[in-house]
């Protein structure tokens, strides 16, 4: 009964999405205001239907309904409640439903948040979102229906993949998808602007909060994923340049370019076609990422079980969506003219380089990711691309970008007037170089040039970002949330850069074999095995080790790594023992029983890796901060826009 209801709700949702698309696009085009108004009803209806479908699936999981194939494939009678609910998005069909749910949520938010915008424009935005929803719902119902039944029902499920039985599952996919899907909003705003033939840059101001929000969620989602793989895959790596990881990183890079480009278009009406293109490309990256992950065209640890027919279907949808948007772009972009000027050292100039460098980075990652496909198309046989390719080629545009950040932050709009900031520039640079040396040479006795460059660049960014806010504070000027947000976000980036430089260069890792009582030296720490004992979990049995970590004779902590065997799937999983000591992680993962009580294990000391999690948190904080400023403005500005006043400069 419940699955049927869910299935039915999904079909209704698809029809409502189609209506939403129709009313939203045809209404404004034909001047039918009743249709324009009807769009909102369609949005609400679609949201209710999708929520119902999701609710039904959750209920099926909670109630152990193994007549539903998806539940039987991803659950089990011994699976704890928490994971039964999170299993909703544990595999392909359910995660698509999550996509659709989040798209419906964003659509609803847009419907509520754009009530002060010109109704026809808002309707167009919702119409485009409706088209996207329709596409995903159609694809889901035809190729990936989560409500398919098993005849006869399974006696018991085959359990959720043990790799996914972790709190990370509850947070990483939903947050990441929220960001992914959020880029659709910017895409929709861009399409609406193009459909309307808008040449004024007001749409940029309207789009900004949505783009910033999507960016913030993407930042959090990617970081949650990195942290999850760090402690769950047993080898302490946080980024492998795996195709699926890249699929989430490329939209992030483009989204970063987008939010900066929107700033220029908003402020000075420049880069209009650039910004439009970035909005389109950002979401296109999300779509292409979805395709890569689910179609089986690439080899990846993270990819969903693939099916060429699904791949074809996604590709068709993708081609229609992106092709239409780019076609609109080719049609409308030539009509966008702007007359502003700016100097070489102006803020606009730095942001132009920012955009270009970020896009180059995204293009490089993209090229490397689909390189095997390209080689295949050219008939060149196997080509395999991994971290040794991505690391140097990614750094190529990013290192100059980081340096430009520290300089450009002092630049004024239009006339850079960098000369005024000469003092600040040189002071911050000198300090950064000195502090960088102190950290790398002093604290870590390191001599790698790249780690020094990374740390110095990071410190420079932090110092440079603080110059203006401190100056204003001293002059008792107000600090708008937008400025605070920007400052925090830049500092967050710098912290990440510093963290990566340190962790990559100064991590100590050793594979050791110990019997109880024996110890080994890793870096400046001693790891001593106490015992390895069997334990039982809710749906697994494990060997749990107790490892004491000490330094200079002083005991710091005891770590409890586990090697688990999940009963149902008979799959082995590892849970590493990790403790953070003043920012540095002490990490132990259990390996194999070597007999006679000896066990192999991997011990790592990862210096200041806490910064790697802290940085993105600061970035996200900055994002939310900036968001809170924008909305305030939007409400006040809404009335002015409706009155037909064009874009004007506003005081802080």
């Amino acid at each position, binding site marked *: 009964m419940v699955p049927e209801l869910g299935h039915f709700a999904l079909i209704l949702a698809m029809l409502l999405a189609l209506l939403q698309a129709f009313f939203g696009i045809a209404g404004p085009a034909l001047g039918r205001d009743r249709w324009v108004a009807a769009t909102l009803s369609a949005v609400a209806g679609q949201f209710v239907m999708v929520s119902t479908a999701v609710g039904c699936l959750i209920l099926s999981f909670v109630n152990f309904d193994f007549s539903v194939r998806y539940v039987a494939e991803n659950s089990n009678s011994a699976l704890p409640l928490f994971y039964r609910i999170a299993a909703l998005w544990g595999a392909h069909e359910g995660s698509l439903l999550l996509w659709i749910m989040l798209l419906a949520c964003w659509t609803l938010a847009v419907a509520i948040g754009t009530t002060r915008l010109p109704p026809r424009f808002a309707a167009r935005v919702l119409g485009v979102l409706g088209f996207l929803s329709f596409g995903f719902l159609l694809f889901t119902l035809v190729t990936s229906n989560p409500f398919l039944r098993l005849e006869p029902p399974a006696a018991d499920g085959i359990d959720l993949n043990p790799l996914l039985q972790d709190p990370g599952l509850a947070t990483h996919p939903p947050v990441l998808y929220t960001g992914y899907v959020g880029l659709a909003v910017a895409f929709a705003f861009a399409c609406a602007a193009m459909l309307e033939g808008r040449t004024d840059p007001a749409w940029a101001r309207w789009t900004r909060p949505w783009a910033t929000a999507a960016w913030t969620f993407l930042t959090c989602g990617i970081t949650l994923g990195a942290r999850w793989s760090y402690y769950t895959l*047993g080898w302490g790596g946080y980024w492998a340049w795996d195709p699926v990881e890249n699929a989430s990183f490329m939209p992030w890079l483009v989204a970063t370019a987008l939010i900066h480009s929107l700033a220029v278009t908003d*402020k000075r009406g420049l880069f209009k076609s650039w910004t439009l293109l970035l909005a389109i490309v950002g979401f296109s990256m999300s779509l292409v990422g979805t395709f890569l992950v689910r179609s089986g065209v690439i*080899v990846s*640890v993270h990819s969903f079980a693939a099916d060429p027919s699904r791949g074809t279907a996604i590709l068709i949808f993708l081609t229609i969506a992106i092709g239409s948007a780019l076609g609109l772009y080719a049609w409308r972009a030539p009509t966008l003219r702007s007359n502003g000027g700016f100097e070489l050292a102006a803020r606009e100039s730095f942001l*132009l380089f920012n955009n270009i460098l970020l896009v180059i980075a995204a*293009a*490089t990652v993209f090229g*490397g990711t689909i*390189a095997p496909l390209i080689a295949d198309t050219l008939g060149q046989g196997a080509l395999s691309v991994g971290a040794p*390719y991505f690391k140097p080629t990614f750094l190529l545009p990013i290192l100059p970008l980081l340096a430009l950040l520290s300089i450009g932050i002092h630049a004024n709009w239009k006339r850079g007037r960098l000369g005024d900031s000469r003092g600040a520039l040189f002071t911050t640079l000198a300090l950064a170089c000195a502090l960088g040396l102190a950290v790398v040479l002093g604290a870590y006795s390191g001599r790698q040039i790249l780690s020094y460059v990374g740390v110095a660049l990071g410190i420079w960014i932090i110092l440079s970002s603080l110059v203006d806010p401190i100056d204003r504070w001293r002059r008792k000027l107000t600090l708008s949330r937008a400025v605070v947000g920007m400052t925090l976000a830049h500092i967050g980036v710098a912290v990440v850069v510093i963290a990566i430089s340190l962790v990559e260069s100064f991590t100590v890792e050793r594979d050791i074999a110990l019997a109880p009582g024996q110890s080994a030296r890793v870096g400046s720490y001693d790891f001593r095995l106490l015992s390895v004992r069997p334990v039982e979990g809710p749906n697994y049995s494990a060997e749990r080790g107790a490892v004491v970590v000490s330094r200079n004779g002083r005991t710091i902590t005891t770590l409890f790594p586990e090697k688990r065997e999940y009963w149902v799937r008979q799959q082995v999983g590892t849970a590493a023992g990790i403790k953070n000591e003043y920012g540095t992680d002490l990490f132990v993962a259990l390996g194999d029983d070597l007999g006679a009580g000896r066990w192999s294990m991997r011990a790592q000391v990862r210096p200041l890796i806490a910064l790697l999690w802290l940085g993105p948190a600061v970035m996200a904080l900055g994002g939310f901060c900036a968001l809170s400023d924008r909305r305030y403005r939007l409400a006040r500005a809404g009335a002015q826009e409706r009155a037909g006043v064009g874009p004007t400069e506003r005081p802080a």
Partner: protein
Amino acid sequence: MIPLVDAHARRLLIGACACVLVLLASAPPALAIDPVQMPTPELQARYLALIQEFRCPVCQNETLADSNEDVAGEVRRQIRTMLLQGKTDTQIRDYLVSRYSEFILFKPEYSLRNAWLWLLPVALLALGTVVALRVIRARAALVGEDDDQEDGDLGPRVDSR
């Protein structure tokens, strides 16, 4: 559903994968804890670097260092043997490529065939710089001396992003 592959061929492939999967199913994911000590630190360093460079032939995108597959373990052992025999890194690389094809490399070879891949970032950077400078030059020409009046609201110091 659109069948893109002959069902028969698909079944064959699934059969082959089944055997590989038998190996996979019993293995912990991505965790090759191999307490190996080469006789000299120099060899140890070379060994650790080499096993990061190669793909585990049966895994989904893992290095030899990270995979617990038996095949990966054997290839690692082969690498150790060759290192002890005094072979150079290039010889070891060539040996593995001659058996497993370039698929086993994570770093694409510097060859004419792969030239586009390695030159892409450089070419993009050059192109990007040229484009940026042209745009800036065009825009800089539009900044007149008399615009200063309307610059008032752009502020001496940056007020906004």
